[in-house]
């Protein structure tokens, strides 16, 4: 017998960004539950809206298979008393025991038969735990102190195996076969079966599959803009949000007065995107058009009331922005500098005024010119403007725009505008040299000052976004080619930066992990140099002589380590034996000063031969010491590029 299964956890509106991770957990946990209990069956879909988490599975059996197990008991020699005790413990009688001969002699055994449990009973027992075990970023209780926690209150539960309800209860809500439709478009208490569930939801205003909701949004937006020579500004994150904040999404096209286009497009887009969750619309040249797309959570706007309402809200927001713009212009950025004394950077570190002083000094240290220093002085002053207080995402951008409006030269305002970049791993770094130096100084100051008061990130907690700051530092230095000798670092910051550097080259730039380790072992503080060494190692890696030589270096390193050899002296030529040792030494001397790339091929056979024929651990201590010195020198000469013993080779790993 093969049964379908459906579970629906009906809730109040779950934050959009938490839904997909929760469904992934639920799906994995449920599949594991089926597997561990031998219930057959596979999860066939995991879908969700803000108000429901829905899991479907197919092919479940209605009862666990019975199991047959041969349990070994006491040896026959222990006698009938022991046998009876064994039988009793397993709920059997002595006559059910059998005797079998094993390698250790004759033993009692029992065929123990365990009857499988009903699937419905197992699920009824396990599902409440499973549901409550989903990890959410922040949970709540709603039935009073000490009651169960979930992301939002659970209001109904559907759990069907075949057409039977799997009975259980969470926080006073009993499972059943009744779902709820869309808040405004559907009914409540809709009786469903596993077969008609989706259809019933659909007729009650709920599109269960996120993919279908997304398609509906995209298709209908295309329809709204068709023939108008307009397009939306692509925004996958916003599309995701709107897909998971709605059960029945319907886009509408709204407009605003084109007089607002006088405001910077950055401001207009932020208002639409972050405050109103609207898509911006642009013409075919990429200029912002006086339109927007809002996505409703309902089926239609026949009287245009929703469009009108959204246009009204946007107008008020734009009016605010224009008001802020005009107000803010009354006080120049440079006159706001002392106001930064009242803006906290971090309680333990101090104000943005103090941060500004440090960043200016750091910019000087980095060789920033007068424009960069000017930008450093102004870069945080926009934090005191009404515009940034209202639209915090626009910090930096607003400062740049104001600096431009106040007649600052382009290198200055652009540096201010860009100084928070890169905003993400993929985001672009500042476009100008001044911007890169400023951004670097700002981020480095944030890192150094936070670490100095013990605010290092721990585990997944990184409230000051120090990982992002560190990643920004690495990217700006490497990709922007900024000369940066990081000033003295405390050990925890050094380790933190080391991790970020390793992550960057390995996971972002896709260098092999052992190449990254090898090159970093030869130094990592100069990131531009590190990058060039990585590129060299990556280039010679596929050459036939490279990995053998790397394996030899590992061997050399081990030999030196075992010998406890640290002494540094010159090789005594008179102690060099003719033959393989002499040949290696001569080749080493001959190629001295040449590049790594050109030395590998001639040296490799000499090294191989040396190890094949020469005993490093010579009986004569002077000879032994001389050989160790030779090996040590070879290791030294190459180690300014990479520690090749870190390279994982077939020879070294076998």
């Amino acid at each position, binding site marked *: 017998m093969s049964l379908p299964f459906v579970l629906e956890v009906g809730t109040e509106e779950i934050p959009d960004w938490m839904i997909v991770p929760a469904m992934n957990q639920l799906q994995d946990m449920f599949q594991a539950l089926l597997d561990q209990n031998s219930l057959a069956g596979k999860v066939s879909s995991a879908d969700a809206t803000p108000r429901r988490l829905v899991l479907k599975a197919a092919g479940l059996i209605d009862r666990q298979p019975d199991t047959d197990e041969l349990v070994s008991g006491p040896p026959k020699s222990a006698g009938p008393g022991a046998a009876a005790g064994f039988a009793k413990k397993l709920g059997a009688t002595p006559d059910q025991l059998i005797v079998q001969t094993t390698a250790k002699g004759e033993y009692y055994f029992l065929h123990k038969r365990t009857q499988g449990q009903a699937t419905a009973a197992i699920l009824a027992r396990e599902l409440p735990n499973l549901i409550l075990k989903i990890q959410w970023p922040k949970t709540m209780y709603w039935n009073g*102190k000490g009651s169960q926690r979930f992301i939002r209150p659970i209001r109904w539960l559907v759990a069907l195996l075949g057409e039977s309800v799997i009975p259980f209860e969470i926080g006073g809500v009993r499972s059943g076969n009744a779902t709820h439709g869309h808040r405004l478009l559907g009914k409540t208490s809709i009786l469903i079966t596993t077969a008609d569930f989706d259809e019933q939801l659909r007729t009650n205003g709920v599109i269960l599959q996120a993919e279908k909701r997304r398609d509906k949004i995209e298709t209908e937006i295309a329809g709204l803009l068709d023939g108008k020579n307009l397009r939306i500004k692509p925004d996958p994150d916003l599309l995701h949000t709107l897909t998971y904040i709605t059960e029945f999404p319907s886009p509408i096209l709204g407009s605003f007065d084109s007089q607002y286009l006088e405001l910077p497009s950055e401001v207009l887009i932020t208002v639409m995107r972050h405050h109103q969750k609207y898509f911006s619309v642009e013409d075919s040249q990429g200029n912002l058009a006086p339109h927007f797309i809002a996505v409703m959570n309902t089926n239609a706007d026949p*009287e245009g009331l929703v469009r009108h309402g959204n246009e009204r809200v946007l107008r008020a927001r734009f009016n605010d922005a224009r008001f802020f713009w005009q107000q803010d212009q009354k006080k120049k950025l440079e006159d706001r500098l002392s106001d930064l004394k009242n803006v906290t950077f971090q309680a333990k570190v101090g*104000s943005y005024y103090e941060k500004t002083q440090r960043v200016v000094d750091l910019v000087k240290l980095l060789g920033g010119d007068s424009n960069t220093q000017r930008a450093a002085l102004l870069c945080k002053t926009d934090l005191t403007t009404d515009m940034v207080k209202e639209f915090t995402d626009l910090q930096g951008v607003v400062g740049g725009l104001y600096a431009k409006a106040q007649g600052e030269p382009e290198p200055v305002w652009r540096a201010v505008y860009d100084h928070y970049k890169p905003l993400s791993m993929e985001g672009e770094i500042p476009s100008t040299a001044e911007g890169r130096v400023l951004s670097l100084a700002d981020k480095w100051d944030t890192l150094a000052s936070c670490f100095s008061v013990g605010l290092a990130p721990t585990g997944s907690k990184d409230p000051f976004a120090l990982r992002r700051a560190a990643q920004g530092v690495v990217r700006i230095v490497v990709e922007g080619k900024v000369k940066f000798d990081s000033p003295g670092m405390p050990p925890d910051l050094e380790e933190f930066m080391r991790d970020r550097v390793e992550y960057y080259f390995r996971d972002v730039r896709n260098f092999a992990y052992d190449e990254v380790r090898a090159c970093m072992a030869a130094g990592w503080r100069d990131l531009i140099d590190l990058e060039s060494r990585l590129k060299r190692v990556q280039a010679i890696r596929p050459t036939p002589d490279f990995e053998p030589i790397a394996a030899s270096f590992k061997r050399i390193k081990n030999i030196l380590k075992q010998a406890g050899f640290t002494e540094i002296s010159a090789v005594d030529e008179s102690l060099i034996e003719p033959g393989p040792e002499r040949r290696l030494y001569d080749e080493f001397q001959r190629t001295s000063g040449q590049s790594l790339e050109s030395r590998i091929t001639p040296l490799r056979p000499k090294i191989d031969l040396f190890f094949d024929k020469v005993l490093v651990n010579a009986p004569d201590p002077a000879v032994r010491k001389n050989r160790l010195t030779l090996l040590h020198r070879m290791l030294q000469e190459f180690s300014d590029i990479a520690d090749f013993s870190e390279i994982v080779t077939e020879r070294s790993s076998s």
Partner: protein
Amino acid sequence: MTAPTFQDTVFALKKYWSDRGCIIQEPYDVEVGAGTMAPETFLRVLGPDPYRVAYVQPSRRPADGRYGENPNRLYKHQQLQVILKPSPADVIDQYLGSLTAIGIDLSKHDIKFEEDNWEAPTLGAWGIGWQVMLDGLEITQFTYFQQCGGFDLDLVPAELTYGLERISAFLQNVDSVYDIEWAPGIKYSQVRFQDERQFSKYNFELADIKMLWQLFDLHEKECQRLLSTTDVVLAAYDQVLKCSHIFNLLDSRGAISVTERVGVIGRVRRLALGVAKAWMAQTEYAQTNPPDAAQEVVA
């Protein structure tokens, strides 16, 4: 159908919640920044006793003043605050019913519940909830209280905070709060414009900073005295509200430096937690169930 006046909307909401078992209270008569701070919320959400109340609370936020020149920003706005303790299972349906009751035909509009968790560090309070968006306009803050005064709450209250000016402007389709018709033939500006202009001037320019600091110290001392030597918790709580408002005034005067700020917030918070602790201690319940937050209150 003509749009309801501002006061019609208030009447309709009060009637609606009165029909659902709420006491209709009058605004609290000490300055507060939000309806949550009125004792009808701050104290009543504590402890095991069910409670339902609704009231309009004029809420003063000195720094938000714009001299009456901004159509959407006010130094003092009106909130309609509803507390349902414990929250009923159909609380959202009841809330949506209240929108219908004030003349919003939900079949013609777009309602969304967007994540917005509320937190008031000075009150040791936080909750989980949403901002309710009507056609893109935030009209209500909906919160399931989890903690107040540092205490985990015995019963989880739902707090509904309606922004009355926004809702009224929406219903009347006007772009400026000052154009809202408050009573038939009377505009919001006729009732409130002078408050906005004069208090903005006072809050930003005229308030005597030295005097405010003195008042802050005096109210703080009075609160501490009442808490340590008497059982008049309610009177002590008024002193907390005074301190909180004076803090806001000092803030709008730009008189609180970065280094001072955290400390002053901490002073108000300690008073608020002390009041909550004393309030809890006055219930029999608290005597048999020592509060989890006791250490925090002492700290």
